[in-house]
């Protein structure tokens, strides 16, 4: 039951939505799982809910062959992403992570754009966004478009790149590098299903078992989802083994801020991140896990 009263609008084009969202306490509804939970708890004062799901252009999933990217509409649900054959083909990591978010009933509602906008950053989907070089397409209240890289979406203070009146319209995801092997390791809270710590890696390995380059994304463990840029730099050129990974991890961990909450302490998350980094890199490289 929701105690607060609000108005509801379901525009069919994005410009109308932008105009509505520019007014007062308007909030966009795409998947709805986050907003509706907030409304029930009376944590959000909302005068108008703008439902984006009736805007056809926002749910399209398109292959942009020339740019070698996929354009995924903001209201595409995780189920749609998981089942879309183009995404499975060109961005398998995204499809796979979308398929293991929460539970089936949630995946049928939760949308990519909604998840990004709601700062729902503990989910594994962020690992895929950060590793894939995703670009988030945003339209502002004046109807002008801009793109923000997933890696730049959160500022250091925890706020996102979104401004009042902004609508995420789509996410552009470059085709996955077929040379890179990926792996994702996570531990979740048994009650909420939220990720306590998730580490995703994409790595390319030279013949001699030496890391050529790697990308590392951490979700759930740190206050915000992030790439471990320093660790990526240090690992490049090193032979893949547990000692090297541990040494690099020990060199970078001190600069990270770990989250602490009901599910786990910061100390435990710090520890898990190191373990999962090792496991993910070993898994990706050992199995030469091209996906």
């Amino acid at each position, binding site marked *: 039951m929701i105690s607060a009263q609000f108005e*509801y609008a379901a525009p069919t084009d994005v410009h109308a939505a932008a105009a509505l969202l520019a007014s007062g306490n308007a909030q966009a509804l795409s998947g709805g799982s986050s907003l509706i939970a907030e409304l029930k708890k009376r944590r959000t004062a909302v005068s108008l809910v703008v439902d984006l799901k009736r805007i056809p252009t926002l749910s399209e999933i398109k292959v942009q062959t020339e740019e070698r990217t996929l354009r995924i509409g903001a209201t595409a649900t995780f189920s749609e992403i998981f089942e879309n054959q183009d995404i499975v083909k060109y961005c398998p990591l995204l499809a796979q992570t979308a398929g293991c978010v929460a*539970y*089936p009933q949630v995946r049928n509602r939760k949308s990519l754009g909604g998840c990004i906008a709601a700062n729902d950053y503990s989910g594994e989907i962020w690992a895929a966004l950060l590793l894939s070089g995703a670009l988030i397409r945003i339209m502002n209240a004046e109807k002008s478009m801009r793109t923000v890289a997933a890696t730049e979406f959160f500022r250091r203070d925890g706020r996102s790149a979104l401004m009042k009146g902004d609508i995420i319209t789509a996410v552009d995801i470059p085709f996955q590098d077929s040379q890179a092997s990926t792996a994702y390791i996570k531990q979740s809270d048994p009650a909420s299903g939220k990720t306590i710590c998730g580490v995703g890696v994409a790595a390319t390995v030279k013949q001699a078992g030496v890391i050529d380059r790697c990308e590392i994304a951490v979700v759930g463990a740190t206050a915000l989802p992030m790439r471990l840029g320093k660790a990526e730099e240090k690992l490049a050129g090193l032979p893949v083994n547990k000692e090297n990974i541990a040494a690099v991890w020990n060199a970078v961990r001190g600069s990270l801020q770990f989250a602490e909450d009901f599910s786990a302490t910061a100390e435990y998350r710090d520890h898990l991140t190191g373990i999962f980094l090792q496991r993910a890199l070993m898994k990706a490289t050992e199995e030469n896990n091209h996906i």
Partner: protein
Amino acid sequence: MRIAVNVNGSKYVQEVEPRLLLVDFLRDNLGLTGTKRGCDAGECGVCTVLLNGKTVRSCSVLAVEAHEGEVTTIEGIAQDGKLSILQETFWEHHAVQNGFSTPGTIMSVSELLRKNPNPSEKEVRRWLDGTLSRETGYQNIVRATLAAAERIRSTGDAASVAQPSQMLPADLIGASIKAREAPELLTGQAKFIADISLPNMLHVAILRSEQGHAFIRRLDVSQAEKMPGVVKVFTAKDVQVMPLPVVWVPPGVESHFLPHPSGMVPGSQTVMAEERVRYVGEQLAAVVAETRQQAYDALHAIVVEYEPLDVVTDAEEAVKEGAPQLHETAPNNILAASAFGDKEATLKALEEAEVVVEQRLYNQRMMQSPLEVRGAVASYDPAQEEYTLWTNTQIPYPHRLLISQYILGIPFNKLRVIVPVMGESLGCKGNVYADSPLMCVIAKALRRPVKWVDTREGYSRDTAQSRDQVQYVRIAGTKDGKVTALYCSAYSNVGAYPVINAPGQPLPLIGRSITGAYLIDHPYYEVKIVYTNKVPASPMRGSGRAEAIFLVERMIDLYARKIGMDPAEVRRKNMVPPERFPFQNGLGWVYDSGNYAAALDKALQNAGYDSAAEKKVEARKRGKLFGVGIGSYVAVAGVGRSRKMGDEGLVSGTWGSACMSVAPSGEVTVTTGSQPHGQSHETTFSQITAQELGIPLEYISVRHSDSKGALYYGQASYGSRSLSVEGIAIQKAAQKIITKIKTFAAAAFQASEEMIVYEKGTVYLKTAPDQARMTLQQAAFALWLGWDLPEGMEPGLETFAYFDPPNFNFPFGTHIAMVEVDEQTGVVDLVKYVAVDDFGTVVNPLVVEAQTHGNICLGVGQALYEEAVYDDRGRVLTDGFSTYAIPRASFLPDFELSRTVTPSPSNPIGAKGAGDVSNPPVAPAIVNAVCDALADSGIKHIEMPLKPEKIWRALQQSRV
């Protein structure tokens, strides 16, 4: 705004508020109550429906979002009265017990099977993670889903299996008859408390204390009373009734209850808090409004000012000098202190022992967490001055007695209690709560029916919780494995007020049970039952025996490790041998029958216990620590012999009762004194009746759940008693029916009664079986119409029967858990679970097996995930399923069950209790397994729940 939604093929056009949730639209606006509300927070999945062909949680979707969409609910699944394949297989595999979560579960897996017609067991479990099941567990749901997939693949047709009702009556005891209650649960037709709606009904929302301990300085409801739709706001001044009673007063024990004006029993909390609150959740005000939404909206307009007092939530702290005092009548917050066993002899045995092991154990506070929360509907008939109360309680007859006599102060006959179809309880619905009498008061004051149904968050604060006992334990024995003494000094935290039977759990149920399956010469148990600013505590599935068995099973393992002996061997060496029955356990129980070592050996064999060492080596290679743990148990059940229970302090007998009527047309109606909430009483009690009378099951109906039924008073279901006590009363009733028929037949055939035989629903003369015979129906017809009865014979064919067992019964068994611990993260993976139980004679194996799944599921929850967490102001932080972790399907392996059968001498069927008794061995088996896995690190014990971070920390410390 106006919406048009197609639901189950019918188009509905309605004006709705944008904030209306889809679940409320379906239930309240369309009356489609098959879709349930479980948590209202998108966490439990019981409200799952299909929206445009995809499953959604209807509590997390606005009704306006479904505009121009298609919704399918459980009511739309069965076609033309024919069950779908999934519904059929759920029925066949007994995947439905209380049935509250069944509709959402069926909707959820229907989408899985459409997407993946050939799922693996693992895929089914992963999918089911989105749908919680509490008392049923998941095993039969998984089986039913796989079976449905296979049937759809092979036939694409909902071929139903043959009805087992054609079976010969001789087969009925021990037959896995499909639950007769299931069809209405599978189709969403069953009406639970939240589904009850009366004409002209008002809705109630209850304001509860936000403070754990405080004086109330101001309570201003004036703004709330002006809110739209609000009829009145009730506070303490409007509710002048007696406080809740307590009906368990241990004799000869110094106890400090609260006063009660009846002078007959002690008291507990008042229905409405007036000056002071002692836990977060006490009732302060009740808003009554035209709609549920309006009632809840107005709650926010009530102003309360508190003057906070110091809070104490820890039982050991509460008894210390200087602790905040909760009740003037209870110095040092002690409700009662008592002991069982010979303290001096036990201390002496400890002193003289070769080996003594000591350990502090904490059996954490748990929340029963049924998916169905509590609710109450009340109406008042001024012409008859009679109240009717609908509520989901395990104890309708005691409800009627206690609320009429001790709370409202009205005649017994002026209150009728009806229990709708009821979701699971796990013990928390076996109490009398302040909200039920409150609804009666409001219904009378306003002369309109009123309804209150709790929320999930409310549940965590207004419904009794359980366990919560600290135990200081010492076990003593010889170096070669003979246990000589067991000493326990305990603190039980019962929260701010006693529930109706508060002393029952910490005193006899734990105290007399701590010897478990063993012959221990010197057992001793003492306990302080302590008030704190927590929610009151009540029994929970496994009640009392769970705390006792955890204690003894952990101590046996610690002792075995200390002397370097195999814990299985220590158990075998100390178990009560078969020739010692009946066996006095030294603390007040007389064990009835058993072969405990045989069940142990069978479990060891089924689990492959001998290969544990190899498994450790193999797991080590994968970076995993393998551990195996045993939980053996004996659990008092079949409550019970009335005199014995009276001696324990229960202000009530515990006999079973039944009324049996044979209609002129031959159908048999049985009214039981028990109260089902998922145990399939209608099925098992029909089996007993059909067996005795030799007639088909279809002729029999079982009634319950209404205090205005055939029984004037009765007991209830708790403590694994229904079949072995109430079921026996039914058997006796059938025998009385047969006796009367035989007397009648003897007169009709002009023969002596010894010459009359009753067999397979027919009575005949031994010497002329073909000529002189009549059926049960013919006899009933003649007896009811009764114009030419033999001289002195009363007309009619119905009878009452009672059964008060000479002793409890004592089911037993051994469970074995195998785990792998990730030494780097502390994550525990339960890889294998084997159970061998002995429930004596089992009437319906399908039912009992499913109950065992539920017991194991709950025990896994206690061992690994569940705990009610409080902050230092007494607020429950685990107030929903995103913070209180009950096991989900993929957390669990397929449990491997088997049984031994040792009939109980306590009743003529030989049945032993089964409903909750197999819970106690689960948590110790798992904790023993984890401690076995960690033994090489020198870790002896970790408190439940064994969360990964806790294990990781213990491993860290062991390395220092």
